[in-house]
């Protein structure tokens, strides 16, 4: 039986994540926790998050979860969502610049507020359903149609140094990394827990994932 730990560090709506995981896993227990022991004894770890990066890093530090997260990313299937993806890069432009966990070399940048999209002003946050183009085959994309739409809500996007870690892209208006992967880590800028069928499929794939690419 799988034990999935959803890391609770006070950033955002964890009920939706845990309810969605419960909906797709008959055979798993889901626990929302900030306890290092519980996180490190889980079979799968999910790192969610909404809000601002400075608060995110401060909360992780205060709860002494930075090392726990780093250790979990070495050992077990690990899924970062939204801010939980951005925190995995080296640095974020948000809040006048914040150093982050550095699991993926690269930085997190603000969408161009002066850009035009079909002649209209680019609205930031990037909010709504956008298509995700899968750029690799990965167990987490299993049974998800190419270019399926997922729900996004974010103003910053990840720009990894090594493009080979990009698992999927979206366009707003330029292509950006909608998902990253490396070994047993997968990270999504979109919210699978709010992306109806395609999102639930991705979470189901995560629950069934052994961490191998």
């Amino acid at each position, binding site marked *: 039986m799988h034990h999935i730990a959803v890391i609770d560090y006070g950033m*955002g709506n964890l009920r*939706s994540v845990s309810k969605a995981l419960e909906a797709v896993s008959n055979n798993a227990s889901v626990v929302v926790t900030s306890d290092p022991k519980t996180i490190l004894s889980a079979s799968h770890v999910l790192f969610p998050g909404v809000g601002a990066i400075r608060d995110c890093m401060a909360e992780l530090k205060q709860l002494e979860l930075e090392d726990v997260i780093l250790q979990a990313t070495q050992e077990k299937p690990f899924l970062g969502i939204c801010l939980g993806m951005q925190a995995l890069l080296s640095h974020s432009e948000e809040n006048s610049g914040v150093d982050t966990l550095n699991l993926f070399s690269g930085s997190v940048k603000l969408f161009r507020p002066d850009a035009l*999209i079909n002649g209209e002003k680019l609205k930031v946050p990037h909010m709504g359903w956008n298509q995700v183009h899968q750029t690799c085959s990965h167990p987490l994309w299993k049974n998800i149609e190419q270019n399926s739409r997922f729900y996004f809500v974010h103003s910053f996007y990840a720009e990894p140094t090594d493009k080979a870690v990009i698992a999927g892209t979206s366009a707003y208006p330029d292509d950006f990394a909608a998902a990253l992967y490396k070994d047993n880590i997968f990270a999504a800028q979109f919210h699978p827990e709010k992306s109806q069928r395609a999102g639930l499929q991705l979470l189901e794939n995560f629950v069934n994932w052994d961490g191998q690419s």
Partner: protein
Amino acid sequence: MSLAKRIIPCLDVDGGRVVKGVQFVDIRDAGDPIEVAKRYDQQGADEITFLDITATHAERDTMVHVVEAVASQVFIPLTVGGGIRTVEDIRRMLNAGADKVGINSAAVNNPEFVREAAEKFGSQCIVVAIDAKKVSAENETDKWEIFTHGGRKPTGIDAVEWAKKMVEYGAGEILLTSMDKDGTKSGFDLALTRAVSDAVNVPVIASGGVGKLQDLTDGIKLGHADAVLAASIFHFGEHTVEEAKQQMAAQGIEVRL
């Protein structure tokens, strides 16, 4: 490949039931919010908005339970508005499973509340709801004013300027309702929608007045809205969300089908 325009069915909730009034009177019962939300999810709704129209203290608990129940079964974004006045109100709704909250009168009474809320929870979950009414005469330049208390109380605040100010304060989205059009089924106030949408760089949801499918397309093409909100056109089975999206797609609007 780009971002889809959104269709958002709106459920006015009173005493745990979905209701729909015409210009805030003549309430008709439209059903159980959980059943209604599930139906819209199956039809392809991009989000669902709940408006707590009584918004009394006792009703707040009912609303929290409604959101909890819906969020356990419907995996699309949920917004809750009506009577959101404190950080604690927001926290309760987010913890119940809402993704965004709509702030209306409380923003007018105390704009700093929007700033505080955005700093605490992030702009992405702070929707400022604006109820606007046209106050200019036919031969004057268009001008709209903010009204509170269900459209009864004028504030003297210009709607377009207010929208810009709320974005500066941290609003991540504007829900714009025309009080002149709400419940009339005669289409959005397109001039108002366009004026606000062009003035701000956050998404704008057009609301108030949808009577036929073409109104939704017009809200996006002519009103420059990023999303369109409607209630009665969907509640009483006149149209499904899917029909609405097919009609929009046929006119070249990118939608999630």
